[in-house]
């Protein structure tokens, strides 16, 4: 689509649309930089890199599961006892590390602008395939950043306090979730891990060894 513009205005103030755009781009750039660091941190902290095979091997973490079991009495006169049994299983360290804390948690950006001038732009579109010409009219707002009168801090209702030419701009950003790929890996791990007892010790032993192996189903 080709675009030709036909503008007629005298410049006065910042293009408000560009100003908002710049803020959003800055946030996106910061998120991107943090995502890169997050990925690097995942590789450095949760994997061991084997230089010869060039493979990142996941660091496994041993978890302990302790539960109480009633052990029946071995003679008619004895009492049943409660014993604690601990099972051990391993999970990848990556599934438990709080990597989201590296991203932007919450970001609020508020500023007020006063519209100082406005203009209209006639945009002529020439569709590449149909060669049809279309004309659109776009309104451009120009302004300057202002402190709203009588308000030192910006509150959600402060835009009301400074007239019709005032614009209150509120930009909110939140933490980006872990990437879909990583979440899928974590899901696969958690759905396929199933504790399997490799050796059943006599009940007098308090520790049992449990190995995690993928489900066959």
């Amino acid at each position, binding site marked *: 689509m080709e675009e030709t513009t036909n503008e007629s205005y005298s410049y006065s103030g910042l293009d408000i649309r560009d100003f908002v755009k710049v803020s959003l781009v800055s946030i996106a750039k910061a998120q991107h930089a943090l995502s890169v660091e997050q990925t690097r*941190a995942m590789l450095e902290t*949760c994997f061991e890199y084997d230089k010869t095979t060039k493979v990142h091997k996941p660091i496994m973490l041993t978890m*302990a599961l302790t539960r109480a079991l009633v052990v029946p009495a071995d003679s008619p006169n004895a009492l049943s006892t409660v014993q604690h049994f601990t099972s051990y299983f391993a999970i990848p360290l990556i599934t438990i590390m*709080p990597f989201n804390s*590296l991203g932007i948690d919450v970001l609020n950006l508020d500023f007020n602008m006063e519209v100082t001038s406005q203009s209209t732009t006639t945009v002529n579109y020439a569709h590449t395939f149909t060669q049809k010409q279309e004309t659109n009219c776009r309104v451009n707002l120009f302004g300057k950043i202002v402190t709203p009168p009588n308000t030192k801090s910006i509150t959600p209702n402060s835009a009301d306090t400074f007239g019709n030419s005032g614009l209150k701009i509120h930009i909110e950003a939140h933490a980006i979730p872990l990437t879909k790929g990583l979440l899928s890996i974590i899901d696969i791990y958690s759905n396929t891990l199933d504790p399997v007892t490799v050796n059943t010790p006599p009940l007098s032993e308090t520790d049992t060894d449990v190995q995690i192996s993928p489900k066959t189903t």
Partner: protein
Amino acid sequence: MQEQSIPCPVCQTKIPFDVHALLRGVAFTCPSCFASIGIAQEALPTVNDAMQKLEELKKNIHSAKKSSS
């Protein structure tokens, strides 16, 4: 913030937990069957090492942010 929970490996009841406390070595108990789950003592140095690396990285990011602003 969304509350985190894991299904109890014994009875499947949801065990609410705080990941930071878990990483510090706190064990969480199932409200239904009282099974407790936590990081094994011998694995705590691995976690501490990883957490230290993460904290260092956060500090680096923080100082990079300060110097750029």
